[in-house]
């Protein structure tokens, strides 16, 4: 019928507009919906879905905590840790007692001035970073509160001097030039002489064998020369005494 009306009297039709406004201002009510009509309620009751419960025996002895989903950010940080470990020639690991952030910052600044970087990461991340690599042996050091110092040069003496002033930092061990060292070994390493004197010592040790032989061959001649020297000096002194006596006379 509306079609007939459209053809006959085009302006006489009234169409519902495309947009029909249902609400105007006023707050909508979602907290106290009105009770549905019986028929509507019946339809809703029949059509609500029922999901089967998993049998309780499966979860009987299992904990109710939800498994945390793996976070890819942990992998990024693990990669950063691996980078630091591989590119620093000195790594020192400390046990950290209770310390204020101010004091820790002061230590961090002191170390930074010596090109040493103080960092700390969680145990799981370090385990992830270091797990199957050659650095696996340092894992037991991270079971408790800790911090790590990375440095590109190997000034163990400077590090020990700076951290001696901080009683809360307890040195546990470290890696110097791809060698794992315990605390006592690190202290001994810091007290070693520099490379030149070590080389000089090596040269001396190498020469000692030949030098010993030469010395032993020359002992008799050397002794004879020494005795002659002493004798000559004695003769000189006596002749000087004689000449002085004669001149006095």
């Amino acid at each position: 019928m509306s079609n007939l009306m459209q053809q006959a009297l085009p302006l006489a039709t009234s169409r519902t507009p495309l947009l029909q406004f249902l609400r105007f201002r006023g707050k909508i009510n979602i907290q106290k919906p009105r009770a549905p009509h019986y028929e509507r309620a019946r339809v809703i009751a029949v059509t609500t879905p029922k999901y089967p419960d998993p049998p309780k025996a499966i979860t009987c002895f299992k904990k109710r905590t939800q498994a945390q989903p793996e976070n890819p950010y942990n992998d990024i940080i693990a990669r950063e840790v691996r980078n630091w470990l591989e590119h620093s020639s000195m790594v020192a690991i400390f046990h950290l007692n209770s310390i204020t952030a101010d004091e820790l910052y002061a230590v961090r600044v002191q170390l930074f001035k010596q090109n040493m970087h103080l960092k700390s990461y969680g145990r799981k991340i370090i385990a992830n970073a270091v797990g199957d690599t050659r650095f696996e042996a340092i894992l037991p050091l991270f079971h408790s509160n800790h911090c790590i110092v990375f440095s590109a040069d190997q000034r163990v003496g400077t590090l020990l001097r700076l951290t001696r002033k901080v009683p809360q930092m307890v040195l546990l061990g470290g890696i110097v030039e791809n060698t794992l060292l315990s605390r006592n070994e690190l202290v001994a390493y810091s007290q070693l002489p520099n490379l030149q004197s070590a080389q000089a010592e090596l040269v001396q040790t190498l020469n000692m064998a030949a030098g010993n032989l030469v010395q032993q061959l020359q002992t008799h001649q050397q002794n004879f020369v020494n005795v002659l020297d002493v004798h000559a000096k004695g003769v000189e002194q006596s002749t000087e005494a004689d000449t002085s006596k004669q001149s006095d006379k």
Partner: protein
Amino acid sequence: MSIPFSGTLRRSGGVVSAIGKQLKSVNLKGVKRVTVQFDPFAENVKSTREFLFLLSTPKVTQTNPKCVVKTDIVCDRQPAQIKFSLIESAQELAKAKEIRFRSSNLSTLELLQLYNKHVSTLAPPEEIATKVLTKAEKQKIAGGGGGKKAPKKK
């Protein structure tokens, strides 16, 4: 048939709150020096390190500022131990000069419990400091004892 109630009304807070509860009663007053010796690469050192950390917290150190906590790092895979050197009065009480805990097979909570049982009890009792009287209080006492004094003329 109803059975009488058995069990707890409140759930326990776990290990962490038990440790916190023990920490509140930790008292270092009877101890002159604490030496914590461990090998960081040995097994079962975690509880010793945690105990060392807890001893270094400000609340515990303030119970006795004179007590020194020293850490010995060894490299011979010795089992970890913690030694408490006692002050004289505590030595008389305990009849020992120092108390040693072998901590490789003890958890942090057990260490704290044993400490509270054996060492915290050796702390000397606190002396009640004599109260310093203010002038007004002194006058009040004197005035109450010897009759009221004549009021001052301005």
